[in-house]
């Protein structure tokens, strides 16, 4: 027992390890809370880009002796406006605009840094963090930034929720959609600045989205998802530091590896959406329905569905008819295969092929291929 306690306590005999743990816990908890919105709104790429984009701001602030967060914030806001300007009037798609700004800004940061002495050390610290080099002042700064970010998420909780879930409702309720979106970007930029010292520009994305993604597989309530994500982040911080100490590996990557491992465990074992459960459910369904059947997902009010039914009936093709207005599971399935749209009819064939809103000719051709009963022969003339 004493041995285990000693093993657990040993790393924290050093003051720099204690500061490192405090820093890791601060960003380990703050990042996933903001990251929850990034995961729900599909902003992962934008978050990664923001982390790289603020590099020149951090470097310039460092060179002229300003707080790093100010430099990062100025560049972050400028970049968000720049991306907006590039995509206005549909000149460029947003992901392309983000890519252009990301790479350009990152190159500028590296170029500025490369003119300095000790370039290689600075670069590796900025890219991958230097958790064990955190000073007392750094720690206070990180705590201040993280506190500000958590306060922002808490204060605008219901507005961010509506903006993320239903942008149309946000507009009809006259919420300032543009302001809230930019505020969220600023909060993301701030939490990234707080994290650079801990995990670096290259890995901060993992702190933001990995615990939140794991949490999203376990719950159907947003507050629970945030708490779970923060918990995973904290576990990642503590276990990651032990891993770094005893295996003698870099602390930032160690934390990210633990978080990734947590995600993989959740992804495999989650009680409702884990791959194991989905796999066994699929198997038991396969047992229940030994002979795969043609399934038509449809609604009562749809002309194409009626047409499809007519074709199937005329060929005496057996099928299961699921009304997606009555059957939530069926509706969810249709949205899954149609990228969120409830396109009907969606027809799933025994061989696994899926046709969405097929023309009668296309449907006939597919049935021919399956070897269904031939089309009713036309009566030869004159008989």
């Amino acid at each position, binding site marked *: 027992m004493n041995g285990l306690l000693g093993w657990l306590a040993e790393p924290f005999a050093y003051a720099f390890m204690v500061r490192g743990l405090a820093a890791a816990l601060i960003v380990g908890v703050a990042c996933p809370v903001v990251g929850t919105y990034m995961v729900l709104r599909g902003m992962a790429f934008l978050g990664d880009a923001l982390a790289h984009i603020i590099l020149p701001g951090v470097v310039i602030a460092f060179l002229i002796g300003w707080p790093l967060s100010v430099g990062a914030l100025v560049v972050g806001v400028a970049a968000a406006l720049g991306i907006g300007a590039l995509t206005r009037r549909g000149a460029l798609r947003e992901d392309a605009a983000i890519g252009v700004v990301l790479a350009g800004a990152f190159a500028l940061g590296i170029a500025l840094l490369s003119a300095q002495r000790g370039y290689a050390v600075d670069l590796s610290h900025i890219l991958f963090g230097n958790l064990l080099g955190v000073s007392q002042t750094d720690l206070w700064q990180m705590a201040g930034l993280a506190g500000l970010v958590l306060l922002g998420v808490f204060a605008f909780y*219901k507005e961010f929720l509506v903006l993320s879930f239903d942008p*149309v409702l946000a507009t009809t309720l006259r919420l300032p959609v543009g302001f809230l979106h930019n505020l969220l970007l600023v909060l993301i930029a701030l939490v990234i600045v707080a994290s650079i010292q801990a995990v670096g520009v290259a890995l901060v994305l993992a702190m933001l989205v990995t615990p939140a993604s794991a949490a999203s597989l376990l719950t159907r309530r947003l507050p629970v998802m945030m708490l779970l994500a923060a918990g995973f982040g904290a576990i990642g911080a503590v276990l990651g530091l032990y891993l770094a100490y005893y295996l003698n590996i870099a602390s930032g990557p160690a934390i990210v590896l633990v978080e990734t491992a947590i995600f993989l465990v959740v992804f495999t074992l989650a009680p409702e959406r884990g791959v194991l459960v989905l796999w066994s459910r699929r198997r038991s369904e396969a047992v229940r329905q030994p002979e795969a059947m043609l399934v038509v997902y449809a609604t009562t009010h749809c002309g194409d569905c009626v047409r499809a039914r007519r074709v199937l009936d005329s060929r005496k093709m057996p099928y299961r008819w699921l009304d997606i207005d009555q059957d*939530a599971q069926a509706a969810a399935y249709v949205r899954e295969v149609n990228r*969120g749209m409830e396109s009907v009819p969606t027809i799933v064939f025994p061989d696994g092929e899926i046709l969405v809103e097929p023309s009668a000719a296309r449907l006939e051709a597919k049935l021919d291929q399956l070897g269904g009963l031939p089309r009713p022969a036309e009566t030869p003339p004159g008989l």
Partner: protein
Amino acid sequence: MSELLARPQTHDPASPPLRVSRLSVQFNGSPALSDVSFTLPAGQRVAIVGPNGAGKTTLLRVIAGAMAPSRGSVEIFGARPGGHVCIAYVPQRSQVDWRFPVTVADVVMMGRIRRLGLFRWPGRSDWALVREALARVDMADLQKRQIGELSGGQQQRVFLAQALAQEAELVLLDEPLTGLDLPSQEAIFHLLDELRQTGVPALVATHDLNLAAERFDRVMLLNRRLVAYGPPREAFTRENLQATYGGHIHMLADAGGMLVLTDTCCEGDEEAA
């Protein structure tokens, strides 16, 4: 920030709930709506009918303030829609992410957040209002469900409950009846009846001409322009229907009146932009 703190605009009680004047909307240079003008009096229930691509969704989105018109104006109780929170707009379904981690009660509460105001959390009376709204659409026992676990008709009713919780003074519904079974349709009409009794007008886009004729005070025939607007008996003439639907309509006259068949369908509306 200023928009967040602004008080909702005060109403001019002498003005109608909704006045649309010379409204035009263009998509990439081609007109989606041109020169549409009408007023909606208090307590009236109006059906918007027209073929796919007629601009029904566009019209509702512009009134809701989710889209800016190219020309013309929309006045709500005498004021531009800028500062208003009194409109409830229920779009066609399938526009939100159903996997989102919110419960039915959470979604209904979203209707109240402007009434709550900034930095305030829902209190007991707000949750009571949410429960009451859910009870009125017969969904009280499903309030703890995740939103994606509901059927299409139930999801539609959740958004109606959201409109109720919002205490809206103008209700816009886009295809709320499409694909619903009869009990769900009746539940929606029951609600619309209640709204009418409290003087709240409703503008409802629908494909069902027969329901439009039987259950609404007025109908609007729309095909990029306003073809006709008035009580069903006056607006549903052979000429107006031809002008609205062109060749996609068949009319069978009989002793009791006219039976109208259209060949338009529900999903994949091309005006979903």
